[in-house]
Protein backbone atom coordinates (compact mmCIF):
# COMPACT_ATOMS: atom_id res chain seq x y z
CA UNK A 1 0.00 0.00 0.00
CA UNK A 2 2.88 2.39 0.51
CA UNK A 3 6.20 3.19 -0.97
CA UNK A 4 7.77 2.21 2.31
CA UNK A 5 7.42 -1.32 1.13
CA UNK A 6 10.13 -1.45 -1.44
CA UNK A 7 12.31 -4.43 -1.28
CA UNK A 8 14.70 -4.29 1.57
CA UNK A 9 16.23 -7.31 3.25
CA UNK A 10 14.18 -8.46 6.21
CA UNK A 11 15.69 -7.09 9.40
CA UNK A 12 15.06 -10.25 11.36
CA UNK A 13 16.73 -12.53 8.83
CA UNK A 14 16.77 -16.05 10.08
CA UNK A 15 18.60 -18.85 8.33
CA UNK A 16 16.87 -19.05 4.98
CA UNK A 17 15.89 -22.45 3.68
CA UNK A 18 18.46 -23.83 1.29
CA UNK A 19 17.57 -23.19 -2.32
CA UNK A 20 15.93 -26.18 -3.91
CA UNK A 21 14.66 -27.53 -0.63
CA UNK A 22 11.17 -28.98 -0.65
CA UNK A 23 9.85 -26.41 1.81
CA UNK A 24 7.65 -23.51 0.66
CA UNK A 25 9.65 -20.29 0.60
CA UNK A 26 8.08 -17.06 1.86
CA UNK A 27 9.05 -13.74 0.32
CA UNK A 28 8.86 -10.46 2.23
CA UNK A 29 6.43 -7.95 0.69
CA UNK A 30 5.49 -5.44 3.42
CA UNK A 31 7.85 -4.44 6.20
CA UNK A 32 6.60 -3.92 9.74
CA UNK A 33 6.13 -0.11 9.62
CA UNK A 34 4.03 -0.52 6.49
CA UNK A 35 1.85 -3.17 8.10
CA UNK A 36 1.38 -1.01 11.19
CA UNK A 37 0.58 1.98 8.97
CA UNK A 38 -2.11 -0.06 7.21
CA UNK A 39 -3.73 -1.06 10.52
CA UNK A 40 -3.63 2.55 11.75
CA UNK A 41 -5.26 3.78 8.53
CA UNK A 42 -7.79 0.96 8.72
CA UNK A 43 -8.87 1.68 12.30
CA UNK A 44 -8.96 5.45 11.92
CA UNK A 45 -10.76 5.22 8.58
CA UNK A 46 -13.49 3.02 10.06
CA UNK A 47 -13.88 5.34 13.05
CA UNK A 48 -13.97 8.40 10.80
CA UNK A 49 -16.58 6.81 8.58
CA UNK A 50 -18.75 5.63 11.49
CA UNK A 51 -18.67 9.02 13.26
CA UNK A 52 -18.94 11.12 10.12
CA UNK A 53 -21.75 9.23 8.42
CA UNK A 54 -24.43 10.44 10.87
CA UNK A 55 -23.71 14.00 9.71
CA UNK A 56 -23.41 13.09 6.04
CA UNK A 57 -26.68 11.12 6.21
CA UNK A 58 -28.41 13.15 8.91
CA UNK A 59 -31.83 12.25 7.51
CA UNK A 60 -31.20 8.49 7.59
CA UNK A 61 -33.16 6.41 10.07
CA UNK A 62 -29.94 5.18 11.69
CA UNK A 63 -28.18 8.57 11.86
CA UNK A 64 -29.01 9.44 15.45
CA UNK A 65 -28.48 5.88 16.73
CA UNK A 66 -25.03 5.68 15.15
CA UNK A 67 -24.08 9.03 16.67
CA UNK A 68 -25.40 7.95 20.09
CA UNK A 69 -23.20 4.85 19.88
CA UNK A 70 -20.26 7.23 20.19
CA UNK A 71 -21.85 9.36 22.90
CA UNK A 72 -23.97 11.68 20.77
CA UNK A 73 -22.88 14.82 19.00
CA UNK A 74 -20.10 15.63 21.46
CA UNK A 75 -18.73 12.10 21.74
CA UNK A 76 -18.88 11.33 18.03
CA UNK A 77 -17.27 14.70 17.32
CA UNK A 78 -14.41 13.94 19.69
CA UNK A 79 -13.80 10.47 18.23
CA UNK A 80 -13.96 11.90 14.70
CA UNK A 81 -11.40 14.61 15.44
CA UNK A 82 -9.11 12.26 17.35
CA UNK A 83 -9.18 9.64 14.58
CA UNK A 84 -8.64 12.36 11.99
CA UNK A 85 -5.63 13.69 13.87
CA UNK A 86 -4.11 10.21 14.15
CA UNK A 87 -4.69 9.50 10.45
CA UNK A 88 -3.18 12.84 9.45
CA UNK A 89 -0.24 12.13 11.73
CA UNK A 90 0.26 8.67 10.24
CA UNK A 91 0.19 9.95 6.67
CA UNK A 92 2.49 12.85 7.60
CA UNK A 93 4.88 10.34 9.18
CA UNK A 94 4.81 8.28 5.99
CA UNK A 95 5.56 11.27 3.76
CA UNK A 96 8.26 12.48 6.15
CA UNK A 97 9.78 9.00 6.25
CA UNK A 98 9.84 8.89 2.45
CA UNK A 99 11.58 12.26 2.34
CA UNK A 100 14.11 11.14 4.91
CA UNK A 101 14.85 7.91 3.05
CA UNK A 102 15.16 9.67 -0.30
CA UNK A 103 17.06 12.79 0.64
CA UNK A 104 18.92 11.95 3.84
CA UNK A 105 19.71 8.30 3.37
CA UNK A 106 19.93 8.65 -0.40
CA UNK A 107 17.81 5.55 -1.06
CA UNK A 108 17.24 5.06 -4.78
CA UNK A 109 14.18 3.81 -6.62
CA UNK A 110 11.60 5.41 -4.33
CA UNK A 111 10.20 7.76 -6.89
CA UNK A 112 10.99 5.84 -10.07
CA UNK A 113 11.91 2.37 -11.10
CA UNK A 114 10.30 -1.05 -10.73
CA UNK A 115 9.36 -0.80 -7.04
CA UNK A 116 8.10 2.78 -7.09
CA UNK A 117 4.51 3.91 -6.52
CA UNK A 118 4.86 6.51 -9.26
CA UNK A 119 2.52 5.76 -12.18
CA UNK A 120 4.57 4.78 -15.23
CA UNK A 121 3.92 3.86 -18.85
CA UNK A 122 4.17 0.21 -17.82
CA UNK A 123 0.97 0.65 -15.79
CA UNK A 124 -0.96 1.83 -18.84
CA UNK A 125 0.30 -1.14 -20.85
CA UNK A 126 -0.53 -3.58 -18.07
CA UNK A 127 -4.00 -2.10 -17.66
CA UNK A 128 -4.57 -2.90 -21.34
CA UNK A 129 -3.19 -6.40 -20.84
CA UNK A 130 -5.46 -6.92 -17.83
CA UNK A 131 -8.49 -5.95 -19.94
CA UNK A 132 -7.43 -8.46 -22.60
CA UNK A 133 -6.98 -11.08 -19.91
CA UNK A 134 -10.52 -10.35 -18.64
CA UNK A 135 -11.76 -11.47 -22.08
CA UNK A 136 -9.36 -14.41 -22.46
CA UNK A 137 -7.49 -12.51 -25.14
CA UNK A 138 -4.10 -12.62 -23.51
CA UNK A 139 -2.00 -13.87 -20.60
CA UNK A 140 -2.08 -12.41 -17.10
CA UNK A 141 0.18 -9.32 -17.07
CA UNK A 142 3.66 -9.68 -15.59
CA UNK A 143 3.18 -7.26 -12.72
CA UNK A 144 6.02 -5.58 -10.90
CA UNK A 145 6.07 -4.79 -7.18
CA UNK A 146 2.91 -2.68 -7.44
CA UNK A 147 0.04 -3.11 -9.90
CA UNK A 148 -1.84 -0.20 -11.42
CA UNK A 149 -4.86 -0.69 -9.11
CA UNK A 150 -2.59 -0.75 -6.07
CA UNK A 151 -1.02 2.52 -7.20
CA UNK A 152 -4.50 3.97 -7.66
CA UNK A 153 -5.42 2.91 -4.11
CA UNK A 154 -2.23 4.41 -2.75
CA UNK A 155 -2.63 7.79 -4.44
CA UNK A 156 -6.32 7.86 -3.57
CA UNK A 157 -5.45 7.55 0.11
CA UNK A 158 -2.69 10.15 -0.11
CA UNK A 159 -4.75 12.60 -2.13
CA UNK A 160 -7.90 11.91 -0.13
CA UNK A 161 -6.18 12.40 3.21
CA UNK A 162 -4.69 15.69 2.04
CA UNK A 163 -8.07 17.04 0.87
CA UNK A 164 -10.08 15.60 3.75
CA UNK A 165 -7.46 16.74 6.25
CA UNK A 166 -7.32 20.29 4.92
CA UNK A 167 -11.12 20.59 4.82
CA UNK A 168 -11.46 18.90 8.20
CA UNK A 169 -8.99 21.26 9.86
CA UNK A 170 -10.85 24.29 8.47
CA UNK A 171 -14.09 22.93 9.91
CA UNK A 172 -12.40 22.03 13.18
CA UNK A 173 -10.88 25.49 13.70
CA UNK A 174 -13.11 27.88 11.73
CA UNK A 175 -12.28 30.95 13.84
CA UNK A 176 -8.57 30.32 13.32
CA UNK A 177 -9.03 29.58 9.62
CA UNK A 178 -10.88 32.89 9.21
CA UNK A 179 -7.65 34.69 10.13
CA UNK A 180 -6.48 34.05 6.58
CA UNK A 181 -9.37 32.43 4.70
CA UNK A 182 -12.72 33.94 3.69
CA UNK A 183 -15.79 32.46 5.37
CA UNK A 184 -17.15 30.96 2.17
CA UNK A 185 -14.27 28.50 2.42
CA UNK A 186 -16.29 26.83 5.23
CA UNK A 187 -19.00 26.17 2.65
CA UNK A 188 -16.42 24.73 0.28
CA UNK A 189 -14.75 22.73 3.05
CA UNK A 190 -18.01 21.18 4.26
CA UNK A 191 -19.12 20.26 0.77
CA UNK A 192 -15.76 18.85 -0.25
CA UNK A 193 -15.43 16.95 3.04
CA UNK A 194 -18.76 15.25 2.37
CA UNK A 195 -18.17 14.56 -1.32
CA UNK A 196 -14.66 13.26 -0.74
CA UNK A 197 -15.99 11.10 2.12
CA UNK A 198 -18.59 9.57 -0.20
CA UNK A 199 -15.86 8.83 -2.70
CA UNK A 200 -13.47 7.39 -0.11
CA UNK A 201 -16.05 5.27 1.71
CA UNK A 202 -17.43 3.88 -1.52
CA UNK A 203 -13.99 3.25 -2.89
CA UNK A 204 -12.55 1.53 0.16
CA UNK A 205 -15.60 -0.51 1.15
CA UNK A 206 -16.29 -1.71 -2.36
CA UNK A 207 -13.39 -1.34 -4.77
CA UNK A 208 -10.47 -1.83 -2.38
CA UNK A 209 -12.27 -4.61 -0.50
CA UNK A 210 -12.92 -6.42 -3.78
CA UNK A 211 -9.49 -5.84 -5.35
CA UNK A 212 -7.58 -6.67 -2.22
CA UNK A 213 -9.69 -9.27 -0.47
CA UNK A 214 -13.05 -10.37 -1.76
CA UNK A 215 -12.34 -11.40 -5.37
CA UNK A 216 -12.48 -15.19 -5.94
CA UNK A 217 -8.69 -15.71 -5.91
CA UNK A 218 -8.31 -13.89 -2.57
CA UNK A 219 -11.63 -14.63 -0.87
CA UNK A 220 -12.28 -14.05 1.96
CA UNK A 221 -9.13 -12.01 2.51
CA UNK A 222 -5.50 -11.59 1.53
CA UNK A 223 -3.36 -11.90 4.65
CA UNK A 224 -0.23 -10.37 3.11
CA UNK A 225 -0.91 -6.91 4.57
CA UNK A 226 -1.05 -8.46 8.05
CA UNK A 227 1.69 -11.11 7.85
CA UNK A 228 3.93 -9.22 5.44
CA UNK A 229 4.95 -12.11 3.19
CA UNK A 230 3.70 -14.17 0.27
CA UNK A 231 4.75 -17.64 -0.86
CA UNK A 232 7.19 -17.89 -3.72
CA UNK A 233 4.48 -19.54 -5.80
CA UNK A 234 2.08 -16.68 -5.23
CA UNK A 235 4.74 -14.15 -6.18
CA UNK A 236 5.62 -16.03 -9.36
CA UNK A 237 1.99 -16.12 -10.47
CA UNK A 238 0.83 -12.70 -9.41
CA UNK A 239 3.91 -10.59 -9.96
CA UNK A 240 5.90 -12.40 -12.58
CA UNK A 241 7.69 -9.18 -13.52
CA UNK A 242 8.95 -8.68 -9.99
CA UNK A 243 9.78 -12.37 -9.53
CA UNK A 244 11.85 -12.59 -12.72
CA UNK A 245 13.68 -9.36 -11.89
CA UNK A 246 14.51 -10.65 -8.41
CA UNK A 247 15.84 -13.92 -9.84
CA UNK A 248 17.86 -12.03 -12.43
CA UNK A 249 19.40 -9.59 -9.95
CA UNK A 250 19.79 -12.05 -7.10
CA UNK A 251 17.42 -9.95 -5.02
CA UNK A 252 15.22 -12.84 -3.99
CA UNK A 253 17.43 -14.50 -1.39
CA UNK A 254 17.68 -11.51 0.96
CA UNK A 255 13.86 -11.25 0.90
CA UNK A 256 13.26 -14.80 2.05
CA UNK A 257 11.61 -14.84 5.46
CA UNK A 258 10.31 -17.58 7.71
CA UNK A 259 6.72 -18.64 7.11
CA UNK A 260 4.29 -16.53 9.17
CA UNK A 261 3.43 -18.25 12.43
CA UNK A 262 -0.03 -19.56 13.23
CA UNK A 263 -0.52 -16.75 15.77
CA UNK A 264 0.37 -14.10 13.18
CA UNK A 265 -2.03 -15.59 10.69
CA UNK A 266 -4.79 -15.80 13.29
CA UNK A 267 -4.24 -12.17 14.28
CA UNK A 268 -4.41 -11.18 10.61
CA UNK A 269 -7.64 -13.09 10.19
CA UNK A 270 -9.22 -11.47 13.24
CA UNK A 271 -8.21 -7.92 12.30
CA UNK A 272 -9.14 -8.48 8.68
CA UNK A 273 -12.51 -10.01 9.50
CA UNK A 274 -13.42 -7.17 11.86
CA UNK A 275 -12.36 -4.55 9.33
CA UNK A 276 -14.16 -6.14 6.41
CA UNK A 277 -17.32 -6.78 8.43
CA UNK A 278 -17.54 -3.26 9.86
CA UNK A 279 -16.79 -1.71 6.48
CA UNK A 280 -19.45 -3.73 4.69
CA UNK A 281 -21.90 -3.00 7.51
CA UNK A 282 -21.35 0.74 7.11
CA UNK A 283 -21.75 0.36 3.38
CA UNK A 284 -25.09 -1.39 3.86
CA UNK A 285 -26.21 1.54 6.02
CA UNK A 286 -25.30 3.93 3.22
CA UNK A 287 -27.24 1.86 0.72
CA UNK A 288 -30.22 1.94 3.08
CA UNK A 289 -30.00 5.72 3.28
CA UNK A 290 -29.52 6.30 -0.44
CA UNK A 291 -31.91 3.76 -1.93
Amino acid at each position, binding site marked *: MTTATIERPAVHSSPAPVAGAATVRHIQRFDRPTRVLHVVIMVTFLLLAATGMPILFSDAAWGRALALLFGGFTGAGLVHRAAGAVLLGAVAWHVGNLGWRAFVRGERGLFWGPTSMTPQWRDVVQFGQQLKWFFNRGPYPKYEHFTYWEKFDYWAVLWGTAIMGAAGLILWFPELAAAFLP*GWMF*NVALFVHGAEAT*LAIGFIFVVHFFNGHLRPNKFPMDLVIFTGSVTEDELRHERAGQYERLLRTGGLTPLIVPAPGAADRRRGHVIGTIGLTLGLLLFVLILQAVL
Partner: protein
Amino acid sequence: MAIRFAVPLAAFILTLSGAVVVNAEPAAAAVKPPANEDCLACHDDVGKPFASSIHEAASCVDCHADLSTVQEFPHSEKVAKVSCAACHDEIASQYRDGIHAWAKEKAGLKMAPSCADCHGRHDISPKTSATSRTHKNNVPATCGSCHEGLAEHYNQSIHAAVLKAGNAAAPTCADCHAVHATQRADVPSWRLGVAAECGSCHADVVDSFRRTFHGKVTELGFTRVAACADCHGAHEILPASNPASMIAKDRLVETCGSCHKGANEKFVQYDPHPNPRSHARSPLLWWINQFYTVLIAGCFGAFGLHSLLWFRRERQEKRRS
Protein backbone atom coordinates in the same frame (compact mmCIF):
# COMPACT_ATOMS: atom_id res chain seq x y z
CA MET B 1 -99.87 -3.86 32.09
CA ALA B 2 -97.26 -2.41 29.72
CA ILE B 3 -98.04 1.15 30.77
CA ARG B 4 -97.79 0.29 34.40
CA PHE B 5 -94.16 -0.72 33.94
CA ALA B 6 -93.35 1.91 31.32
CA VAL B 7 -93.74 4.91 33.63
CA PRO B 8 -91.29 3.89 36.35
CA LEU B 9 -88.91 2.59 33.68
CA ALA B 10 -88.92 5.94 31.91
CA ALA B 11 -88.38 7.68 35.22
CA PHE B 12 -85.47 5.38 35.93
CA ILE B 13 -83.84 6.02 32.56
CA LEU B 14 -84.34 9.77 32.96
CA THR B 15 -82.74 9.59 36.34
CA LEU B 16 -79.75 7.75 34.97
CA SER B 17 -79.26 10.06 32.02
CA GLY B 18 -79.66 13.07 34.29
CA ALA B 19 -76.90 11.68 36.47
CA VAL B 20 -74.66 11.28 33.49
CA VAL B 21 -75.25 14.70 31.96
CA VAL B 22 -75.08 17.03 34.95
CA ASN B 23 -73.57 14.68 37.45
CA ALA B 24 -76.30 15.60 39.88
CA GLU B 25 -77.96 13.38 42.43
CA PRO B 26 -80.57 11.02 41.05
CA ALA B 27 -83.36 12.98 42.69
CA ALA B 28 -82.35 16.09 40.73
CA ALA B 29 -83.96 14.70 37.62
CA ALA B 30 -87.24 15.74 38.96
CA VAL B 31 -86.00 19.29 39.64
CA LYS B 32 -86.18 21.79 36.83
CA PRO B 33 -82.84 23.63 36.42
CA PRO B 34 -82.96 27.41 36.18
CA ALA B 35 -83.42 28.73 32.65
CA ASN B 36 -81.09 31.34 31.15
CA GLU B 37 -83.75 34.01 31.72
CA ASP B 38 -83.76 33.16 35.41
CA CYS B 39 -80.01 33.81 35.58
CA LEU B 40 -80.11 36.93 33.45
CA ALA B 41 -82.75 38.43 35.67
CA CYS B 42 -79.95 39.28 38.05
CA HIS B 43 -76.86 38.95 35.84
CA ASP B 44 -78.05 41.37 33.20
CA ASP B 45 -74.45 42.48 32.43
CA VAL B 46 -73.73 38.97 31.09
CA GLY B 47 -76.63 38.95 28.69
CA LYS B 48 -75.14 41.01 25.91
CA PRO B 49 -71.68 39.43 25.68
CA PHE B 50 -73.19 35.97 26.06
CA ALA B 51 -75.72 36.51 23.30
CA SER B 52 -72.93 37.27 20.84
CA SER B 53 -70.65 34.45 22.02
CA ILE B 54 -70.08 31.09 20.41
CA HIS B 55 -71.85 29.48 23.38
CA GLU B 56 -75.05 31.47 23.01
CA ALA B 57 -77.09 28.31 22.34
CA ALA B 58 -75.89 26.70 25.56
CA SER B 59 -77.63 27.18 28.84
CA CYS B 60 -75.89 28.83 31.78
CA VAL B 61 -75.98 25.66 33.85
CA ASP B 62 -74.18 23.67 31.15
CA CYS B 63 -71.04 25.40 32.36
CA HIS B 64 -72.17 26.41 35.85
CA ALA B 65 -73.22 22.84 36.50
CA ASP B 66 -73.28 23.25 40.27
CA LEU B 67 -76.15 25.74 39.94
CA SER B 68 -78.42 23.41 38.02
CA THR B 69 -80.09 22.21 41.20
CA VAL B 70 -80.45 25.60 42.84
CA GLN B 71 -84.07 26.40 43.70
CA GLU B 72 -83.69 29.44 45.87
CA PHE B 73 -82.37 32.76 44.64
CA PRO B 74 -80.12 34.56 45.14
CA HIS B 75 -77.88 31.48 45.18
CA SER B 76 -74.83 31.24 47.40
CA GLU B 77 -71.89 33.52 46.62
CA LYS B 78 -69.76 30.43 46.43
CA VAL B 79 -69.92 28.89 42.97
CA ALA B 80 -67.79 26.07 41.63
CA LYS B 81 -65.13 26.75 39.00
CA VAL B 82 -66.27 26.18 35.46
CA SER B 83 -64.66 23.14 33.86
CA CYS B 84 -64.08 23.68 30.15
CA ALA B 85 -62.62 20.18 30.06
CA ALA B 86 -66.09 18.70 30.49
CA CYS B 87 -66.66 19.42 26.78
CA HIS B 88 -63.20 20.37 25.44
CA ASP B 89 -61.34 17.46 26.95
CA GLU B 90 -58.73 17.06 24.21
CA ILE B 91 -57.63 20.68 24.32
CA ALA B 92 -57.69 20.60 28.11
CA SER B 93 -55.29 17.69 28.08
CA GLN B 94 -52.95 19.58 25.74
CA TYR B 95 -53.14 22.54 28.10
CA ARG B 96 -52.19 20.33 31.04
CA ASP B 97 -49.00 19.30 29.14
CA GLY B 98 -48.03 22.92 28.61
CA ILE B 99 -45.90 25.37 30.53
CA HIS B 100 -48.90 27.50 31.59
CA ALA B 101 -50.64 24.67 33.44
CA TRP B 102 -47.34 23.67 35.00
CA ALA B 103 -46.74 27.23 36.18
CA LYS B 104 -50.21 27.59 37.61
CA GLU B 105 -50.65 24.21 39.22
CA LYS B 106 -47.14 23.00 40.03
CA ALA B 107 -45.05 26.14 40.37
CA GLY B 108 -47.75 28.11 42.18
CA LEU B 109 -47.71 31.02 39.79
CA LYS B 110 -51.33 32.06 40.27
CA MET B 111 -51.29 34.65 37.51
CA ALA B 112 -50.43 31.99 34.89
CA PRO B 113 -53.33 31.71 32.48
CA SER B 114 -55.99 29.08 32.23
CA CYS B 115 -58.67 28.94 29.51
CA ALA B 116 -60.58 32.10 30.37
CA ASP B 117 -57.51 34.32 30.53
CA CYS B 118 -56.93 33.93 26.80
CA HIS B 119 -60.42 33.06 25.54
CA GLY B 120 -62.53 35.27 27.76
CA ARG B 121 -65.57 34.13 29.72
CA HIS B 122 -69.10 34.84 28.63
CA ASP B 123 -68.00 36.58 25.47
CA ILE B 124 -65.94 33.69 24.06
CA SER B 125 -65.88 34.01 20.28
CA PRO B 126 -64.20 31.78 17.70
CA LYS B 127 -60.76 32.66 16.36
CA THR B 128 -62.36 33.35 12.99
CA SER B 129 -64.18 36.34 14.41
CA ALA B 130 -62.22 39.57 13.99
CA THR B 131 -63.02 40.73 17.49
CA SER B 132 -62.00 37.49 19.17
CA ARG B 133 -59.05 37.57 21.57
CA THR B 134 -57.78 34.50 19.72
CA HIS B 135 -58.15 35.95 16.23
CA LYS B 136 -54.74 35.95 14.56
CA ASN B 137 -54.50 39.76 14.57
CA ASN B 138 -55.29 39.89 18.28
CA VAL B 139 -53.14 37.01 19.53
CA PRO B 140 -50.04 39.19 20.11
CA ALA B 141 -52.10 41.52 22.30
CA THR B 142 -53.67 38.60 24.15
CA CYS B 143 -50.32 36.99 24.93
CA GLY B 144 -48.84 40.44 25.45
CA SER B 145 -51.22 41.12 28.30
CA CYS B 146 -48.74 39.06 30.32
CA HIS B 147 -45.69 38.88 28.03
CA GLU B 148 -45.58 42.59 27.54
CA GLY B 149 -41.93 42.90 26.54
CA LEU B 150 -42.10 40.08 24.01
CA ALA B 151 -45.18 41.53 22.37
CA GLU B 152 -43.30 44.80 22.00
CA HIS B 153 -40.47 42.98 20.24
CA TYR B 154 -42.89 41.09 18.07
CA ASN B 155 -44.76 44.20 17.04
CA GLN B 156 -41.54 45.63 15.57
CA SER B 157 -40.75 42.45 13.65
CA ILE B 158 -41.16 41.70 9.98
CA HIS B 159 -43.80 39.10 10.85
CA ALA B 160 -45.97 41.70 12.58
CA ALA B 161 -45.50 44.10 9.66
CA VAL B 162 -46.51 41.45 7.14
CA LEU B 163 -49.51 40.48 9.26
CA LYS B 164 -50.61 44.13 9.47
CA ALA B 165 -50.24 44.39 5.71
CA GLY B 166 -52.92 41.74 5.46
CA ASN B 167 -50.97 38.52 4.94
CA ALA B 168 -52.76 36.00 7.12
CA ALA B 169 -49.92 33.49 6.66
CA ALA B 170 -47.59 35.59 8.81
CA PRO B 171 -46.97 33.89 12.13
CA THR B 172 -48.01 35.22 15.49
CA CYS B 173 -47.19 33.74 18.90
CA ALA B 174 -49.42 30.69 18.51
CA ASP B 175 -47.90 29.59 15.18
CA CYS B 176 -44.47 28.90 16.65
CA HIS B 177 -45.46 28.14 20.24
CA ALA B 178 -47.91 25.25 20.27
CA VAL B 179 -50.94 27.12 21.43
CA HIS B 180 -52.26 24.93 24.24
CA ALA B 181 -49.26 22.70 24.99
CA THR B 182 -46.97 25.71 25.11
CA GLN B 183 -43.38 24.67 25.85
CA ARG B 184 -40.31 26.47 27.05
CA ALA B 185 -38.28 27.62 24.05
CA ASP B 186 -35.06 26.12 25.37
CA VAL B 187 -36.13 22.47 25.57
CA PRO B 188 -34.66 20.22 22.84
CA SER B 189 -37.99 19.17 21.36
CA TRP B 190 -38.91 22.81 20.75
CA ARG B 191 -35.51 23.80 19.41
CA LEU B 192 -35.48 20.84 17.05
CA GLY B 193 -39.01 21.46 15.84
CA VAL B 194 -38.61 25.14 15.14
CA ALA B 195 -36.83 24.70 11.80
CA ALA B 196 -39.77 22.70 10.50
CA GLU B 197 -42.09 25.40 11.80
CA CYS B 198 -40.19 28.16 9.97
CA GLY B 199 -40.02 25.86 6.96
CA SER B 200 -43.79 25.76 6.70
CA CYS B 201 -43.39 29.14 4.99
CA HIS B 202 -39.64 29.46 4.29
CA ALA B 203 -39.24 26.03 2.66
CA ASP B 204 -36.21 26.88 0.49
CA VAL B 205 -34.35 28.50 3.32
CA VAL B 206 -34.86 25.58 5.68
CA ASP B 207 -33.91 23.19 2.90
CA SER B 208 -30.57 24.92 2.50
CA PHE B 209 -30.13 25.05 6.29
CA ARG B 210 -30.53 21.26 6.35
CA ARG B 211 -27.49 20.98 4.08
CA THR B 212 -25.21 22.82 6.48
CA PHE B 213 -23.40 21.48 9.52
CA HIS B 214 -25.81 23.46 11.75
CA GLY B 215 -28.81 21.89 10.02
CA LYS B 216 -27.46 18.36 9.94
CA VAL B 217 -26.55 18.27 13.61
CA THR B 218 -29.93 19.77 14.50
CA GLU B 219 -31.67 17.21 12.30
CA LEU B 220 -29.86 14.45 14.19
CA GLY B 221 -31.50 15.71 17.35
CA PHE B 222 -28.65 17.52 19.08
CA THR B 223 -29.05 21.11 20.25
CA ARG B 224 -25.48 22.27 20.50
CA VAL B 225 -25.51 24.21 17.23
CA ALA B 226 -27.45 27.08 15.77
CA ALA B 227 -31.02 26.74 14.52
CA CYS B 228 -33.10 29.50 12.90
CA ALA B 229 -33.77 31.68 15.94
CA ASP B 230 -30.16 31.67 17.12
CA CYS B 231 -29.09 33.78 14.16
CA HIS B 232 -32.33 35.47 13.12
CA GLY B 233 -33.79 36.14 16.53
CA ALA B 234 -37.23 34.99 17.50
CA HIS B 235 -39.71 37.73 18.36
CA GLU B 236 -37.65 40.59 16.98
CA ILE B 237 -36.96 38.88 13.64
CA LEU B 238 -36.10 41.40 10.90
CA PRO B 239 -34.84 41.22 7.32
CA ALA B 240 -31.10 41.68 6.70
CA SER B 241 -31.83 45.00 5.01
CA ASN B 242 -32.91 46.47 8.35
CA PRO B 243 -29.85 47.72 10.28
CA ALA B 244 -31.42 46.55 13.55
CA SER B 245 -31.61 42.97 12.28
CA MET B 246 -29.35 40.33 13.86
CA ILE B 247 -28.29 39.40 10.33
CA ALA B 248 -27.71 42.96 9.13
CA LYS B 249 -24.26 43.23 7.59
CA ASP B 250 -22.87 45.32 10.43
CA ARG B 251 -24.15 42.97 13.11
CA LEU B 252 -22.98 39.65 11.65
CA VAL B 253 -19.68 39.56 13.52
CA GLU B 254 -21.58 40.03 16.76
CA THR B 255 -24.26 37.46 15.88
CA CYS B 256 -21.89 34.72 14.67
CA GLY B 257 -19.54 35.65 17.50
CA SER B 258 -22.14 34.75 20.10
CA CYS B 259 -21.18 31.11 19.48
CA HIS B 260 -17.95 31.43 17.47
CA LYS B 261 -15.74 33.44 19.80
CA GLY B 262 -13.26 35.37 17.73
CA ALA B 263 -15.33 35.49 14.55
CA ASN B 264 -14.16 38.34 12.33
CA GLU B 265 -15.14 40.10 9.11
CA LYS B 266 -13.76 37.22 7.03
CA PHE B 267 -15.54 34.61 9.12
CA VAL B 268 -18.97 36.07 8.37
CA GLN B 269 -18.50 35.65 4.63
CA TYR B 270 -19.77 32.15 5.31
CA ASP B 271 -23.09 31.40 3.61
CA PRO B 272 -25.40 29.72 6.14
CA HIS B 273 -27.90 28.87 3.38
CA PRO B 274 -25.94 27.53 0.41
CA ASN B 275 -27.42 25.50 -2.42
CA PRO B 276 -24.88 23.50 -4.43
CA ARG B 277 -27.64 22.65 -6.92
CA SER B 278 -28.27 26.29 -7.77
CA HIS B 279 -25.75 28.08 -9.94
CA ALA B 280 -27.44 31.38 -9.12
CA ARG B 281 -27.22 30.96 -5.35
CA SER B 282 -23.81 29.23 -4.96
CA PRO B 283 -21.83 29.30 -8.21
CA LEU B 284 -18.61 27.95 -6.70
CA LEU B 285 -20.34 25.09 -4.89
CA TRP B 286 -22.28 24.37 -8.05
CA TRP B 287 -19.04 23.84 -9.97
CA ILE B 288 -17.53 21.74 -7.20
CA ASN B 289 -20.71 19.67 -7.17
CA GLN B 290 -20.40 19.12 -10.94
CA PHE B 291 -16.77 18.09 -10.53
CA TYR B 292 -17.47 15.57 -7.78
CA THR B 293 -20.53 14.19 -9.51
CA VAL B 294 -18.42 13.36 -12.55
CA LEU B 295 -15.51 12.12 -10.43
CA ILE B 296 -17.64 9.87 -8.21
CA ALA B 297 -19.74 8.50 -11.07
CA GLY B 298 -16.62 7.96 -13.20
CA CYS B 299 -14.69 6.29 -10.40
CA PHE B 300 -17.45 3.92 -9.33
CA GLY B 301 -18.52 3.27 -12.90
CA ALA B 302 -15.05 2.42 -14.14
CA PHE B 303 -13.99 0.39 -11.12
CA GLY B 304 -17.39 -1.24 -10.83
CA LEU B 305 -17.10 -2.55 -14.36
CA HIS B 306 -13.46 -3.47 -13.75
CA SER B 307 -14.47 -5.49 -10.69
CA LEU B 308 -17.30 -7.24 -12.49
CA LEU B 309 -15.07 -8.33 -15.37
CA TRP B 310 -12.41 -9.42 -12.93
CA PHE B 311 -14.92 -11.42 -10.90
CA ARG B 312 -16.17 -13.19 -14.03
CA ARG B 313 -12.65 -14.05 -15.17
CA GLU B 314 -11.47 -15.39 -11.82
CA ARG B 315 -14.65 -17.45 -11.46
CA GLN B 316 -13.93 -19.05 -14.84
CA GLU B 317 -10.40 -19.77 -13.73
CA LYS B 318 -11.54 -21.36 -10.47
CA ARG B 319 -14.08 -23.57 -12.24
CA ARG B 320 -11.51 -24.80 -14.68
CA SER B 321 -8.99 -25.74 -12.03
